[in-house]
């Protein structure tokens, strides 16, 4: 896959939950390094220096008891403050959250912004169904890519239809599991426009390694326009070549598992393909999306991602395969 997308805890998106945790992380790394160096210096000195009388009580009570108790108490309060801050979107400074515990600084009420966008993400072996709630209108069902606006918080409603998965976009927020019989929630927000990689973080069987997606953040107007276009049914094939692809789609088994709104394809066990051409990746973050990879995926799904539920479609002629890939690619 191309690498311009961030998937790193160490490079969080601006004003995201991950950025808050990153500040906490820096404190942990620095504090941990200092303690490590001091303890090791003491141990090495103890081995290589000559015997000396020591204050045993002081060592045990001071170093062994008082020091960790004080350090850990401060750390615990700091971490609780950050944890609460992550639940209440609106603060981006970990230290500020900590100080507010002691009544220092401005403890504004951190209620979520109005117009919280709610997106349902359903984990499946090994891809993601993504559904956008639209108040008063039918939800928009998509797959394997999430888009969100940069000035609104998004609440992901996470669930699964098979085994346990876990949604993790390292540059945006911590991970939350998707557990059968439950729904879990995760808030995402960032002011940064960009593309961020997300992965399944809970081992979910065979191709757990190849279960990813991209989160694309964009300005609200762009996002709204995008969502409106995604809500529309698929375009009719406009030229004969694309029509050949369209026919190939229905001559094969594709429509039994996939839905393409506006066509007779209404299968639901595979990802919705209504606008598959507009996505950045194929096979849940496994391949970049272009006509070549589309053809390769259709013909070699079991070679690209062995064990997944999509069979390799070997019955198509070369022309059919190219036409089919071109038609699917045109579904933007």
């Amino acid at each position, binding site marked *: 896959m191309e690498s311009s997308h961030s998937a790193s805890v160490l490079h969080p998106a601006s004003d995201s939950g991950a950025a808050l945790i990153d500040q906490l992380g820096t404190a942990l790394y620095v504090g941990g390094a200092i303690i490590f160096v001091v303890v090791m210096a003491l141990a090495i000195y103890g081995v290589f220096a000559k015997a000396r009388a020591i204050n045993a009580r002081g*060592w045990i009570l001071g170093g062994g008891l008082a020091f960790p108790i004080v350090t850990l108490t401060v750390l615990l309060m700091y971490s609780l403050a950050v944890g609460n801050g992550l639940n209440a979107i609106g603060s981006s400074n970990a230290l500020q959250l900590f100080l507010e515990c002691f009544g220092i600084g401005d403890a504004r009420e951190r209620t979520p912004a109005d117009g919280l966008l709610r997106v349902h993400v359903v984990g499946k072996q090994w891809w993601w169904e993504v559904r956008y709630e639209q108040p008063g209108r039918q939800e928009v069902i998509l797959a394997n890519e999430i888009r969100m606006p940069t000035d609104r918080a998004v609440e992901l409603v996470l669930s699964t239809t098979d085994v346990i998965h876990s949604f993790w976009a390292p540059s945006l927020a911590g991970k939350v599991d998707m557990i059968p019989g439950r729904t879990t929630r995760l808030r995402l927000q960032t002011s940064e426009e960009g593309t961020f990689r997300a992965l399944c973080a809970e081992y979910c069987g065979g191709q757990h390694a190849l279960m990813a997606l991209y989160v694309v953040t964009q300005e609200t107007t762009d996002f709204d326009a995008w969502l409106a276009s995604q809500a529309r049914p698929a375009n009719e094939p406009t030229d004969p070549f694309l029509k050949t692809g369209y026919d190939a789609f229905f001559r094969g088994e594709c429509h039994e598992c996939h839905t393409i709104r506006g066509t007779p394809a209404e299968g639901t066990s595979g990802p919705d393909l209504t606008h598959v051409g507009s996505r950045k990746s194929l096979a849940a973050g496994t391949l970049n999306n272009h006509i070549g990879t589309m053809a390769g995926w259709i013909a070699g799904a079991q070679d690209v991602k062995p064990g997944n539920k999509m069979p390799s479609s070997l019955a198509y002629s070369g022309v059919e395969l190219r036409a089919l890939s071109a038609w699917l690619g045109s579904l933007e």
Partner: protein
Amino acid sequence: MSSRPPDELPNTLPRPAGEFERLQAVWKRPRGWRVLTQVNNTAIGLWYIGAALLFLVLGGILALIMRTQLVVPGNDLVDYDLYNQLFTMHGSVMMFLFAVPVIEAIGILLLPAMQGARDLPFPRLSAYAFWAYFVGGLVFFTTIFFDLAPDGGWFMYPPLTSYEFSPGLRTDFWLLGIGFIEISAIAGAIEIVVGILRTRPPGMTLDKMPIYLWAMLIVGAMIIFGFPPVILATALLELERAFHWPFFLAEKGGDPLLWQHLFWLFGHPDVYIIFLPAAGLVSMMVATMAQTPLIGYRWIVVAMLATGTISFALWVHHMFATGMPHLSLSFFSAASMAVAIPAGLQVFSWIATLWRGNVQRTTPTYFLLGFFGVFVLGGLTGVMLAVVPYDWQAHDTYFVVAHLHYVLIGGMLFPVFAGIYYWAPLISGRQLSERMGTWACTIMFIGVNLTFFPMHIAGLLGMPRRVWTYADGYGLEIYNLLSTVGAFVFAAGIGIVLLDLLLHFRPAGKVNTNPWRAGSLEWLPQDEYAIRSIPFVTNRDPLWANPSLPEEVDAGQHYLPGTATGVRETIVTSPIDARPQYVLRLPGSSWLPVLAGVGTAVFFLALTVKWMVIAVLGAIVALVSILMWLWQSDPAPSGKLFDIGGGLSLPDYMTGSNSHSWWSMVVLMLVDGSIFACLIFTFFYLWTVTLSGFPPESLELPLIGSSVAAALAWAVSVAAMYVSNRMLPQKRMGAVGLTLTAALAGVWIAFGLSLHALLETNLQPQLHGYASTAYTTVAWQGLHAVLLTLMAGFTLVRLWLGMIDPVRRVVFDNTRIMWYYCAAQGVLALLVMSSPRLAM
């Protein structure tokens, strides 16, 4: 009697002619192929360690294959399917076949020597535990060659591992294979706990125990309470897979998180079960290497007790990402941080001890320094993971892979390897190669850091765990390359240690060496009979307190210089202040534990592949062997007193809480009770999380009439047992037998009525979590009814043959204790099953 040291040495010189020869003769180990029949803990301990090291190598090879696969992105050395088996087997082998067995093995090897005992109280039990583990473990490992190895991860989360998503035998091998290896671990724990409490030398009060004894005592207790949750969990998952009884299926009144609670309720204490014994070894070695008593002995004991306790209160930190409320996570976050305090306390005690002494700079010391470096770093990342928001990022990434390997390799492997160099002379009479040891330590230290430090960064760069490949372009390439190189460096270091053992380690007969000038009892002159005579201990470091102790002991001037009863024996002392109570006659070499262990392994493994005939044969071999071995286990009291020196004359038999057997029975019931408690937890947990009602309205509750009648039957059974117990001292043997038979009838009536209460309703175990739990609860009573039948039958036969009388009554007492326990459990089970009536 004798809670103070004798004024002069208990036995005088010269010793009578023939005394020493008789001692040698009874402890003589079998030679040739009969060497397999050994039951002596020192011999079994050595095999046990050898087997554990074999599994370390095997598990390590799996890791090297995985590291080779991950050396570059998109590699195709192994496919996803084999990789998933590899990482599942690596984790399972290292945790269940190496880490826990090796700490028990070291205990079984070192404890008798450290506490001046000829042997621990149940040598055949140790042999059984070893054989079941070794044979079962080897067969379990070979599944990787037949594409039958489990692939659900060592944590085996359902529903991935349940029947729908993991059909086939792979998961069953894990559930049954690991399930019975846990039984072997519990057998070892019983030996260790009762051994430490009852076979210490006179005068070694709790306060004078070597710190390692404390560590193993606490760890034994942790195994007793920590393994039952996973034993129950594996049984429930197997029931779900085999019979579709839902426990973990959300759509049928189960909950996948129930597994995670039960698994980590075991899994987290397990980490400390592995670490505390190693910490105990470190405490012993640090004091010797610094040639000064351990600083803060009592603080360390308190710290280990605190660790053991807190370790049961932080399992949820493996579940921070499951979407639980932040407030409830906070408690477990605090507990997870708190457990760092006793660890820090021990670290500072060790460092202070090193400062106070002139440290011998030899291989064990270097391994100890390696331990400090690796373990402290792992501890610090552990604190980071206890921070809830940070864990939301780091959880299930390579950061955690790095952390756990730092903790386990630092906290266990380095101390154990230090221990290998430190204690090898105790067995072979000479030190391993100082040169090879220093090289091995250096290479291992470089290797472990080169392998695992980059994994922290890979995790933070977004690399999740348990992936057979990864994408390029995210900066992961260099860190994975370093890790792979490091893994081979690390393996080379371990290879040097094994080579050193191969070249320089030969068990010797008589050993009289103390190369590190240690102060603890294991460095007394040792032979097959252990030490010639058992000293009265007045000090935590007896060899430092009395430099002539080795000569006195070896000349036979202390207690029990020969064999008093004419067979293998050791002194049993009181559990707290170690007053001598009786001479325990120990069993000798036998094929029975070997047959029982192999039979048990065959039973479980044949059951997995549904070779029913072989499974039944295995069960019969195991059962018959165990019964024959138990038959020999309660020798008749001689009625005599045996002079062990210093004016001390001890009997050879005791009953009640003075008996070592009573203690093991109590420990066994704690295990049993813990499993049952986990079953009750399962019931109430599912009740609280099931939104559809527990049971849902469409299902009935157990019949109230039959349930009450079952409880009454239990009461009658207990009453009959009570009467039986009153008849025994009156020598009315016919009445004893009759009431015992009546008590047994009561048990089966109670079980039958409990089952009837379910069968006559519309409850079917496949329908709902309530029904499956209720049927499991009753099945558990059925299992105990079978157990009580075996025990009662055993007791009745011995009664009939005159092998039970008012004095020789340990067998009867054990049956009786178990009886009361089963009755209490049976009544509680009935109450719990009917408890939803209260909520109606």
